[in-house]
């Protein structure tokens, strides 16, 4: 019982920490704060917290939780490679208004006026991939190891969230990017289908049992 609660708390904190990163760009684009300031005050601490949760979970013997987070991170990183292949192809075909990772980089390093350089590109790509890892962790902690269609649905939901958020509208292309062209929603959706498919496939390779958050709650309530 005590261990179940402990695991549940660790899962909750890990979910909160993973949820910070993807929201920062949206908050910045909504005009509430600069991404550079948000990165220092929230992004870096959230990464530290997530890694600390991994460490604590390992020390406390929550091997399932450790493997879930780990598979989430690696699966998210791998899935972002797939997303990037589709997104970049879409960009080259005129379906995207710009190079999102480069934009993230200049905003992160507060050098929009000077444009991208290798360091800002590195920061932008790093942030982009970390967002993928964060979504991977969120996916595996929320849902465990569902079937592939579940992860594809998760990916599509992320894509829709992106297209209706200030992250897209602040680019001046409207909701779903329809003021740019129809290639935008097509590219974003396909990229996130690829993300979801690869994430789902990878997470299923985890041989350990993976519990969804609902299963954890059930476990605690049944033990009472």
């Amino acid at each position: 019982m005590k261990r179940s609660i402990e695991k549940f708390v660790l899962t909750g904190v890990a979910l909160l920490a993973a949820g910070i990163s993807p929201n920062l760009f949206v908050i910045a684009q909504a005009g509430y704060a600069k991404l550079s300031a948000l990165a220092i005050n929230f992004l870096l601490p959230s990464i530290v917290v997530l890694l600390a949760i991994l460490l604590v979970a390992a020390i406390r013997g929550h091997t399932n939780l450790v493997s879930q987070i780990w598979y989430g991170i690696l699966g998210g990183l791998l899935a972002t490679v797939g997303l990037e292949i589709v997104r970049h192809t879409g960009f080259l075909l005129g379906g995207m208004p710009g190079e999102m990772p480069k934009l993230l980089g200049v905003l992160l390093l507060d050098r929009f006026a000077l444009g991208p350089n290798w360091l800002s590109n590195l920061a932008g790509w790093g942030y982009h991939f970390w967002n993928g890892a964060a979504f991977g962790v969120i996916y595996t902690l929320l849902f465990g190891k569902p079937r592939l269609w579940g992860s594809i649905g998760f990916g599509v939901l992320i894509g829709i969230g992106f297209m209706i958020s200030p992250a897209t509208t602040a680019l001046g292309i409207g909701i779903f990017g329809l003021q740019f062209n129809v290639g935008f929603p097509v590219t974003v959706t396909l990229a996130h289908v690829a993300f979801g498919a690869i994430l789902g496939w990878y997470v299923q390779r985890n041989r350990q049992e993976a519990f969804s958050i609902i299963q954890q709650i059930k476990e605690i309530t049944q033990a009472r």
Partner: protein
Amino acid sequence: MKRFTRAFTGIATLILGIMLSTGNLHAQNSGLVTVQSGKDFDQTVESLRQMVSKNDMMVMSEINQGKILSMTGLQLNATSLFVGNPNIGNKLFSAGKGVGVAVPVRVNIYEAKDGKTYINYVKPSQQLASFDNQQISKIGQMLDQKLNKLTSMLAK
């Protein structure tokens, strides 16, 4: 006397025509001044920075439009320098708090489709004219002269 007047008018027209046809300096009614640089884009940006410094001003900020737009896939050479100095700023803002709309002065350097590099700016006096303040106007004219001097040194 008539002959002299005709000859003078003819020469004046000729000089004006030559000045306009060279294309080195255009100042339209909008106050936009465009100068063709004798150097390539990078050299022009570098030289302008140095000349700004030599003329008791500083580059307070810079927008690399070319690099920014490279994120959209567009390739071009264009940079805007925001030029001024704290002393002029102090005088201007003391005379009118709203002058920030016109200063620091924006000087734009760009490579046109013909491959030539141009420097353009809107005359500060024109931008500051709407403040209807003699001191501001005076500083605006002084800035005009400074910019004219700067860009003339780079003109082809």
